[in-house]
C-alpha cells in the first residue's frame, strides 16, 4: 500500500498522527534538529539531513524514572514508576538509525534478563523510516550494508518527492497505522514508479566504507599497541560521541533526593568519563584516556561482535560530526587494524 500527501500538507498529516498516538518527530532547535515528543504539529520538520542526537531517546530516554520514594522517619515509602503504556509513533527515522534499534534489541531484550523499559517501548512504537536523499561525507552506513533508502526495520517508509511525501506500508503494524489516517490519498501508478525508483537508487548514494572482515579479531590482537595513545592524544574526554551515538547504551543508576522526596533513575553514562569505572576504594582500572577510547572502539567493533554477532555501529557519522577534535571512529578502526 502506497499513500501520498502534498509537501505543504505535512502539518495535517502530523496532526492526524498526533490524534492517534503519542508522536515523536524531528524538531528544529537552536543547535539543530532533534527528536522530541510533539505537542504542536507545526513544530515538526522533515527538512534535515539527520538529527544531532539519535532517536534512541524514544526508547531509552536520557533520564528514565524507575522508582519514586519518600524518606520518612523510620521508614521509606516506595512506588514503582509504571512503564509507559501508551502506543507511540516515531516519524522521520533515517535507515541507519532504524538499524540501530535492532542492534540495541540484542542487548536489552535478546537473551538473558529482559530490560522492561526498552522492551515495552519498542513493542508499543510504530516506526516511520525516512529515506536519505543526499550523503554527508562523514557517514559510513554503507559499511554495514545499509543504504539510503533501506526499508528494513521500518513499519512505514517515507520518501520525500518533488511535490509529495510518499508513504509505503512495510509491516502489519504500519498498515494498522496508515490505514486509518484519512488525510492521505492513494498514490498513482506514476508515484509508485517514482517510489520504487528511489528505493532502487538507495545503494547508489555512496557513503564512505570500511571492510569489517576480521576487524573484531585484529582489534584483540593489537590491544596492547601504543597506537591507542596516539589515537587518543587529542581526545578531550567530553563524551559527546557517546551521547549522540544511536548504539551507546551505557547508563548509571542514581538517586536524586530533595527534602526527603526522591527518584531513582537511570541516566545515560559514558565510558569516556574517568569516574565511569572508579571504585569506592579509589581503584580505577581505566585512568588513561587511551584506555577509554580503546574501550569505546573495542566495545563496538570487537566485544559486541563476539557477544551478539553484530557490530554496534551503524555508520551514522554523528560522533565524527560532533567531535570537537575531529576524532573519526572509522579512521581509528582502519588505522588500528592496519597497525597489527
Amino acid at each position, binding site marked *: 500500500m502506497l499513500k501520498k500527501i502534498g509537501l505543504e500538507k505535512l502539518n495535517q498529516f502530523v496532526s492526524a498522527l498526533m490524534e492517534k498516538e503519542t508522536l515523536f518527530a524531528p524538531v528544529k532547535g537552536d543547535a539543530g534538529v532533534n527528536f522530541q515528543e510533539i505537542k504542536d504539529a507545526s513544530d515538526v520538520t522533515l527538512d534535515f539531513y539527520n538529527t544531532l542526537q539519535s532517536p534512541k531517546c524514544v526508547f531509552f530516554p536520557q533520564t528514565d524514572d524507575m522508582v519514586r520514594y519518600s524518606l520518612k522517619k523510620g521508614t521509606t515509602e516506595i512506588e514503582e514508576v509504571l512503564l509507559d503504556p501508551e502506543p507511540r509513533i516515531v516519524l522521520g527515522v533515517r535507515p541507519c538509525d532504524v538499524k540501530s534499534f535492532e542492534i540495541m534489541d540484542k542487548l536489552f531484550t535478546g537473551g538473558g534478563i529482559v530490560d*522492561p523499559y526498552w522492551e515495552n517501548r519498542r513493542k508499543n512504537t510504530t516506526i516511520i523510516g525516512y529515506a536519505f536523499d543526499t550523503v554527508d561525507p562523514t557517514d559510513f552506513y554503507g559499511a554495514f550494508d545499509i543504504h539510503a533508502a533501506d526499508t528494513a526495520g521500518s513499519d512505514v517508509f517515507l520518501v520525500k518527492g518533488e511535490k509529495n511525501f510518499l508513504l509505503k506500508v512495510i509491516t502489519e503494524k504500519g498498515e494498522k497505522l496508515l490505514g486509518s489516517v484519512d488525510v492521505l490519498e492513494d498514490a498513482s501508478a506514476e508515484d509508485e514508479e517514482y517510489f520504487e525508483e528511489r528505493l532502487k537508487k538507495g545503494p547508489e548514494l555512496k557513503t564512505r566504507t570500511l571492510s569489517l572482515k576480521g576487524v573484531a579479531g585484529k582489534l584483540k590482537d593489537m590491544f596492547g599497541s601504543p597506537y591507542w595513545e596516539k589515537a587518543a592524544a587529542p581526545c578531550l574526554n567530553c563524551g559527546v560521541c557517546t551521547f549522540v551515538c544511536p548504539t551507546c547504551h551505557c547508563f548509571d543508576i542514581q538517586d536524586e533526593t530533595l527534602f526527603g522526596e526522591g527518584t531513582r533513575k537511570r541516566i545515560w553514562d559514558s565510558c569516556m568519563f574517568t569516574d565511569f569505572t572508579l571504585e*569506592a576504594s579509589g581503584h580505577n582500572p581505566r585512568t588513561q584516556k587511551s584506555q577509554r577510547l580503546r574501550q569505546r572502539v573495542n566495545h563496538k567493533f570487537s566485544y559486541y561482535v563476539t557477544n551478539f554477532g553484530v557490530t554496534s555501529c551503524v555508520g551514522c557519522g554523528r560522533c565524527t560530526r560532533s567531535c570537537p577534535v575531529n576524532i573519526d571512529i572509522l579512521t581509528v578502526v582502519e588505522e588500528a587494524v592496519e597497525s597489527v
Partner: protein
Amino acid sequence: MHNPYIPIPVDVTKIVTEVDTNDIKTFRLSFVNKEDEENFKYIPGQFAELSIFGKGESPIGIASSPTQKGYIEFTVQKAGVVTSALHDLEEGARMGVRGPLGNSWPIDYLEGKNIVIVGGGFAFTTLRSMINYMIHDDHRSRFGNITVVYGAREPGLLIYKDELAAWEKRDDIDMYVTVDKGDETWTGREGFVPTVCKEVGPGSENAVTIICGPPIMIRFTLPVFFELGFSKENIYTSLEMRMKCGIGKCGRCNVGEKYVCKDGPVFSLAELDQLTPEY
C-alpha cells in the same frame, strides 16, 4: 512484566561488628514477603545489589549459605556512600536487595573433589558461604577433604571469629587460621598465607582451590599452588569491579567481552588468562 531494577524489600534483623577497627559489619537481612524469600534461590559465590533509597546501590557477595533458611547475610566494609549509609543502619531498618546476581562457585565441578579454600582479610565472605554450604549435613558427603587457610594482618581483623572457632572443633574440615603478627593474647598460628599454604601443602590430585584475598596475597599464593601441581583450571577466584545494573546492560564492569556481573564474578585462572589483558 518483571522489572529486574526494582529491589526486594528486606529488614535488617541482626548486625555484627566483625573487626576491631569497626569498619566491617555483617548484616542479616530477612525478607518482608515470604514469596520473595522463596524466589531468592542462590548458590555460594553469587552476589546481590544492596539498595538504600536516597543513597544508591552497592554490589556485595552473599556471605550466608543457602542452607541457612529465612535470611541472607552480607559482610560489608565501609567504603563509599552506600556502604557508609548501610553502616549507619540499626537493626529493624528496612532496605532493599536485588539479586541473586552473577555466576557462582562451580559446585557441580567441585563435587567429589578435595577442596582447598584460601582467604585473606575481609575477602572471606563468599568463601564462608561455600564452607557453610559444604559442611552442611545434606552436602558434606558430596565433597572430599576440606582444607581452609585463612589469614588476616592481626587477630582483631579476622572475621567470623565464632564460626572459625566452631569449624576448628569439627573433624571433617582442616582449619589453618593465621595472622601476620599476633598480639599478647594470640595463641594461634603466625605467618603469611602463602607460607602457611606451603607448610600445609595440600595435594593437587583431584583437588580444586578457591582463592580470595588482596592482590598481593594472591600474587604470592599462586606460585605455591602451581608448585603443588594445581593446574590453572583448578584454581578459582572471584573478581570485583564497579557495577550498576548487575545484569550486563549498563556496560561498565567488562574486561574485554566478559562482564564481571553476569559472566563472573567467579573465574578460573585458565579463564582469566583468556580475558583481554585490560588490567
